[in-house]
């Protein structure tokens, strides 16, 4: 999507469809077809664990960075405070997209792992398939908040060990033991810079979800 082209529409061209276009053959997707389910996977982990790299590598679109406000939200329970006049700090979310086939589009959100950002996670977790938690073995404890969060909410996840150069190579079992993961949670190795490696981590997550589905519904075609 290159919006600059649209902005620079020359004289005689219409930057926007005419009002009559509404209803007839307006822009946008075909609204008669039932919308496919929106699929979402979260990529969590501590600072520097490789979330931005991971989302950028597997995404088919330019890695995008969406921001959310940090300040202002803490004041949200003050009904008179509708106007934010101070400077506000933002928190960045990595955003990516993978079109799997004509009916399935997977969205990825890379979310900062610290607990103070959990207000963001609540919206992001709604309807999410599951999560990939990235762990950097040099700072393993940074992934604990994310692990705790998904465990408590019963959201399926895999632990993807991002092995940085110079980091000690632990076995999967050593990592599992150190993090205190349940035996069924997969621990996979991952190089967040490689699309194939990231895609394998996502596949490991979905495979895990398939094997642990609690109330399997294999109903009609989706």
């Amino acid at each position, binding site marked *: 999507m290159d919006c600059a082209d649209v902005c620079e529409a020359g004289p005689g061209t219409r930057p926007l469809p005419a009002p009559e276009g509404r209803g007839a053959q307006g822009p946008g997707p075909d609204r008669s077809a039932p919308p496919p389910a929106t699929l979402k996977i979260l990529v969590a982990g501590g600072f520097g664990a490789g979330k931005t790299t991971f989302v950028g590598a597997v995404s088919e*679109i330019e890695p995008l960075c969406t921001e959310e406000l940090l300040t202002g939200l803490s004041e949200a329970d003050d009904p008179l405070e509708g106007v934010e006049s101070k400077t506000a700090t933002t928190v960045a979310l990595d955003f990516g997209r993978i079109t799997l086939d004509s009916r399935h589009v997977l969205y990825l959100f890379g979310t900062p792992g610290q607990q103070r950002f959990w207000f963001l996670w609540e919206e992001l977790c709604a309807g999410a398939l599951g999560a990939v938690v990235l762990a950097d073995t040099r700072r393993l404890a940074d992934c604990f908040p994310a692990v705790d969060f998904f465990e408590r909410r019963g959201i399926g996840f895999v632990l993807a060990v991002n092995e940085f150069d110079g980091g000690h190579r632990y076995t999967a079992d050593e990592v599992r033991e150190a993090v205190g993961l349940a035996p069924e949670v997969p621990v996979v190795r991952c190089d967040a810079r490689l699309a194939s490696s990231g*895609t394998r981590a996502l596949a490991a997550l979905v495979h895990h979800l398939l094997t642990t*589905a609690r109330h399997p*519904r294999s109903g009609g075609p989706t």
Partner: protein
Amino acid sequence: MSATRATGATSAVRAARAARATGTGTGTRTGPRDTPWLDDSAGRVMRPYTATSGRTRPDVALDLLSLVSATGVRPRTALGPEHSHVLRLCAAAAAPSVAEVAAQLRLPAVVTKVLLGDLMRYGAVTARAPRFLNDPADDLTLLRAVLDGLRRRL
């Protein structure tokens, strides 16, 4: 050495996790990275939002994954540059998500939602809410389709 370290890490981990589970911790780690309120994982600091006249509460319910598209209706009021930019993005052939619009605008999602809310009130933009499944992780047919789709990319 690695073995000792792993064991050491394990007990530290357990303690941290236990503290967190029982709520006895303050919720902040004592590691060096989490000490300041603003660390590298927080984003840039923004100036006030002239585009929204300072409003940071959207009056419409929009999800980050709601798809927004232009209706073709031209707003009667003159649009500022940010509103115009949003409207152009919404006029793309494939309706973008709110998250994509926000990323292109380089504005926080909540501010983008305020702008989109204005355009929706003018009738210039419509939004389609994402259709989330209640228990997507329990829908085997869906999961198989996703797994197949991912494996085809390998």
